């Protein structure tokens, strides 16, 4: 029997939401790791019961948890994230050099094929990999070392590596994104990297050909078509049809093109979802109306999805890792808010209802389709 497990990371713990394929009734377990910030949890595509979680705290630093039973029990694994060699400096907010310092793991991306291989995107921005189920972590130093690292500057939330996309068709190809350095691609399994930011335009960066410095919030792809990428930038929704070699804007008729999340329908590669947010200083939906916008044409033409979502007095945010889709026949869409709601749609966004309403602020949402 198929079902869905939704892994929710919040400011004060993790929650695991499960349902059968109908997605009408949900079981809620948690808080796991109560009181800790859970930036992200994710399950292995190769073993649905292997989960990884990033647990952190301003007091006690970083912990990585692993589950082998779908989140019923957890064990701690290695939490040493040590930069390769002499880490050097990146730019601080004021433009001065600042030493690279590990702060936390923002995102965990398990391998598509091996449950023991998992990538970690960290702040200050770097990519680490474990090939032993989290028992040890090693940096892939080619990313920070490719040449522009010393000019990377943090976004308001820090210099975080928040997006990791593994290309299912091109062996060794990966995409990552960093706030506020931009997007990067490797074609050799993480050995060498290059920026892929051509076509991005950002206020405050006068040179439109700037190699780095763009505040990319999130990138998404459909597994069947990994050369097509969709990006929610700080402002602007962007699309690339050539694996990031060039980008063009597809914001179209969105009420605002600021936002954090973006995701792709599980069965329709040109159906994409965003949640427009009013502005970078007003982190809530425009007009107090929480609306998911869907494009069925890969961008430019967008429709508001509102059925079941609050349409007045709503001033929550939806953070960059807080949207996900399942792969059931009728694609399910999920997103979490800083107000603690996790909304679900079992019909591609036509109608929504909250699975839970009163969690701590939601940092991440990952849906697993269970067999």
């Amino acid at each position: 029997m198929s079902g869905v497990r939704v892994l929710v990371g919040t400011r004060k713990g993790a929650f695991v939401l499960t349902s059968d394929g109908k997605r009408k009734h949900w079981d809620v377990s948690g808080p796991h790791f109560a009181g800790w910030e859970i930036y992200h949890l994710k399950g292995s595509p190769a073993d649905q019961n292997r989960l990884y979680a990033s647990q952190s705290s301003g007091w006690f630093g970083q912990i990585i948890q692993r589950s082998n039973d779908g989140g019923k029990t957890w064990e701690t694994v290695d939490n040493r994230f040590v930069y390769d060699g002499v880490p050097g400096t990146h730019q601080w907010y004021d433009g001065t050099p600042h030493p690279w310092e590990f702060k936390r793991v923002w995102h965990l991306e398990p391998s598509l094929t091996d449950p023991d291989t998992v990538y970690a995107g960290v702040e200050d921005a770097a990519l680490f990999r474990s090939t032993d189920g989290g028992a040890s972590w090693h940096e892939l130093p080619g990313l920070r070392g490719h040449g522009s690292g010393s000019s990377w500057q943090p976004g308001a939330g820090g210099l975080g590596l928040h997006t990791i996309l593994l290309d299912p068709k091109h062996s060794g190809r990966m995409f990552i994104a960093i706030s506020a350095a931009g997007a990067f691609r490797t074609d050799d399994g993480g050995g060498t990297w290059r920026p892929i930011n051509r076509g991005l335009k950002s206020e405050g960066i006068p040179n439109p050909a700037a190699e780095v410095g763009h505040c990319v919030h999130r990138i998404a792809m459909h597994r069947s078509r990994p050369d097509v990428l969709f990006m929610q930038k700080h402002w602007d929704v962007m699309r690339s049809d050539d694996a990031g070699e060039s980008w063009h804007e597809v914001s179209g008729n969105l009420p605002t093109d600021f936002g954090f999340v973006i995701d792709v329908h599980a069965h329709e590669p040109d159906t994409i979802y965003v949640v427009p947010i009013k502005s970078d200083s007003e982190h809530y939906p425009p007009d107090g109306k929480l609306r998911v916008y869907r494009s069925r044409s890969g961008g430019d033409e967008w429709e508001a999805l509102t059925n079941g979502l609050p349409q007045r007095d709503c001033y929550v945010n939806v953070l960059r890792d807080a949207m996900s889709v399942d792969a059931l026949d009728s694609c399910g869409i999920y997103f979490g808010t800083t107000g603690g709601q996790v909304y679900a749609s079992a019909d591609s966004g036509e109608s929504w209802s909250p699975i839970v309403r009163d969690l701590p602020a939601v940092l991440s949402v990952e849906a697993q389709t269970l067999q």
Partner: protein
Amino acid sequence: MIRVVLPAHLRTLARVNGEVELDVAGRVSQRAILDALERQYPVLRGTIRDHVTLKRRPFLRFFACEEDLSHDPPDAPLPERVAAGAEPFLIVGAMAGG
């Protein structure tokens, strides 16, 4: 035996209740206690002091015998009553919001 009081979140992480008791060989210092603590509870590595620099994490403090020892050198001997097990070594999280 050396007695150590951990903050609540680290007790949960280490799966202990109440005080922790440690065997510490030789001179009893902050470093000796933390080395013994991390040997007995490897999950605590990196949560009290940095993995590489071994510096105390900024939002933690060390107290004993009603004294703040946070800024003492890590190899300085701790008060005799701590070494004798009469008083606990306290690892305290900052009372900050969040």
